Each structure stands twice: as C-alpha cells, then as structure tokens.
C-alpha cells in the first residue's frame, strides 16, 4: 500500500483485510475526490483475487492428479513437452531468455527438464520467464513446483494445514512442518515465487 493513498482508499483496504466487503457506494459518497482511486482499488482487488483462485484451482488439480489418479506430472516433463510442442531447441529457449535479460544456457534448460537442478535453486523470476516463453500457465507451473517441493503427504493438505494453523497458532505450524520434514526455507521460497508470479 503506498503512502499517498487517501483516507477513502486506506479505509477500503482496511475493510478488505478485516474480511468485510467494502460498501463502495458509501465510500465514494464519503470521499468523492477519491472515486477514481477507489474504483482502481476495487479493480485491482478483483484481479488479485482472480490470481489467487487460479492458483488454488491449479493446486487442486495437481493434488487430484497426483493423489487420486497417481498421474501427477513433473516440472521438467511439462517444460520439455511444451518446448517440443513449440518446436524449440534448448538453446533457442535460452537465447530468448537471454534476450529478456535472464542469463540462461541451453544446458541449463536441459538440466531443468531432466530434474538435475534442484527446483529451489532456480530464481523465481526465471520460472516466471520460462512459463511465459513456453506458454505454460504461471499457476500451473506454480502447482507443479509446489507439489514437487512438498512431500507426498503435503500438497493441498499442506496448504490447508498451513493456513489453518497460522490462523490459530504459529508455533504449532512451525512444529508441524518440522515434524513432516519440510524445510522452513521451502515455505519462504514458495512465498517469494508466488509474489513474483502474481506480478505483471
């Protein structure tokens, strides 16, 4: 939230954080000079919530595919399949990434596809670029990465437990994660990746 927001927009976000649906007409009546900014905040919130829903839907899909059908995909397989579908060689993908400002080699692409590079060693902006270059939905890629970085007992259940325990008892959450063996930095990495993928 920027500091130059007026009182109307500040109130809008305050209500959203509290889980209360802002009464937009009342806010606009109370702060007519901020009407355009209030509409902008409302549109921004709608878009941000869309990103969150799509993320949840791709996570749910990955969970059902992996847990119920036993046919979950991997990040490497997906990237390779998309690269083939677009008729690109690893070096061509790397060249496009370099053109976009990311220092990647064709060999790096191959290593990513074959799973020889730990996923959490890849900077989040690189995932975002690869998703866009290879036409993989960002949240599809997110769900694959999250699924692979979490243990088989985690996935969607992990997401639910994380949210539930964070709400109630942060200590219990940390304890729960270490009990399942998921390193705490995976959580940070995923949070960082989520922010990067959500940005334009």
């Amino acid at each position: 939230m920027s500091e130059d927001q007026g009182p109307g927009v500040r109130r809008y976000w305050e209500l959203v954080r509290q889980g209360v649906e802002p009464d937009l007409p009342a806010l606009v009546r109370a702060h007519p000079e901020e009407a355009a900014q209030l509409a902008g905040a409302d549109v921004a919130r709608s878009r941000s919530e869309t990103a969150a829903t799509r993320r949840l839907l791709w996570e749910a899909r990955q969970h059902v595919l992996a847990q119920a059908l036993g046919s979950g995909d991997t990040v490497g397989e997906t990237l390779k399949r998309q690269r083939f579908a677009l008729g690109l060689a690893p070096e061509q993908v790397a060249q496009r990434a370099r053109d976009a400002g990311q220092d990647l080699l064709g060999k790096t692409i191959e290593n990513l596809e074959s799973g020889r590079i730990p996923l959490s060693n890849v900077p989040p902006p690189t995932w975002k670029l690869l998703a866009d270059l290879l036409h993989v939905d960002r949240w599809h890629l997110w769900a694959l990465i999250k699924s692979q970085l979490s243990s088989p007992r985690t996935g969607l259940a992990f997401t639910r437990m994380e949210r539930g325990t964070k709400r109630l008892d942060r200590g219990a959450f940390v304890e729960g994660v270490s009990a399942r063996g998921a390193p705490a930095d995976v959580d940070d990495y995923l949070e960082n990746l989520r922010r990067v993928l959500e940005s334009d």
Partner: protein
Amino acid sequence: MPRRFQRPPEVEAEWQRLGSPDDEEFWERLAHSRVETVVAARRKYRDRGRSIIDRIDGILVAKIDPLVRAATRNVAKDEAPLYREDIEAMIGEAFWREVLTAEDTFYEIRCQRKLRNVALDARRSVIDAKARTLERQAARIEPAAVEDVAPAVTVAEEAIADPVDDFAEVEAEIDWYVALVSMPDEVAQAIDLHYRADLKVHSNNPNEPTVSKILGCSERKARDLIRIGEELARRQIEGLPEGEGP
C-alpha cells in the same frame, strides 16, 4: 449409480460443432464455449495425451475461476478472506475429483448450479471446523476465562445456517465484480463506478459525481465504455462467442 442428464440444446449444439483437438479451430471454439462444453471435452479427451489435457485444463480453469469466486462470495461473503480461500480450495478439489474421476454428468449440464451446491457443502465443512476449533480452544482455557470465549462459539454455530439459497435470482444477475478481471483498465473502471459504486453516467447537477466526470471524458465516451463492459461481462457469464453478444 451415476446420474445421467440431457444436455441443454445450446450446449449440445456447441458440442456437435466442436470438432477434433487435431484442428486448430477446435481450440478457438473451445475457448469460446460454455464451461459445460469444456468439461465434456475434458472427459472425452482424457486419454489423448498430456499436451491436450493441459491445454483443455487451462481453458477450464479460466472458465470456472469466475464461477468459483461467485459461488464462494455467494455462500461466504461475510467470512474472513482466509476462510473464503479454504472454501475455494475445497470447491476446486471437489470439482477436479468429479470431473477427472467420476461419471456424474451434472457439471456438463449446469456447471454453475453444481458449483454453488458444492460451495454450500464446503462452507458447512469450513464453518463446522471453525466451530470445533473454537470449542477445543475454549476447553483448553482455564474455567475462569471460558466465559470470554463462549460467545465466539455461539456466533460460529449461528453462522452454520445456510446463507442465500435463491440461486435462480443470483444466477440471473451478472456479477460485475468477477467480470471486471477480463476488461481493459478504462472499461473496468467505468463499469466499477457505474455498477459497483452506483454512480450515474452523467448528471446535470454539477455537484454530483458521475462516471464521465470522474473519468474526465464525455458522456458519450462513458456510455461507450459501459456498453463495452456489459458486452464483455455477458460473454464471460454466458460463454458467448465473439459477435453473439447482445
């Protein structure tokens, strides 16, 4: 026993002209089809390879995202954002489980109605869990302090009652908030000001804020932006292809 339903004529017509995933036109048609048609395609082509199902699922996610949000907002508009996320996650899981593994065809007939029923179930589960958690917390607290927690449990239990169940009315209205996502910035802002903030497009009263004044444009331009937004929203809600709008 799986329930079998007959597709509505408009869905059946879409399905008949869809064609094969080997043709690029199939994808163009599918992207502009109703969500029910996309679900049917997902089931029919489930064994056609990962590239095809990933591509269909990408279209499906884009189609059901606004429906899931609308269903969640309908059943849990007064809940905290985290609970709404829980409900959305549960709807998502129930949706995929049924579409990918079950035979029930109702998602191919009236997807939005089905999602809303699933949303009601998910809401009950989430609110039940919330009430149980509060009860456990209350039980752990020393007897002297239980009195302070008890009202919260009561509130949670009261909240279990079903919310709005007038689906017909809800389905008839266009959810402008959800539709804003697919609109260009200027159009989204005009729609937001008109339908969400309840402002008139234009007014002769110089002191009344209106869409045209706030956007700094003519009345005609403001009306054009709103008309474009309405058309985009209807296409999104009804799944109408280009050129078939009102």
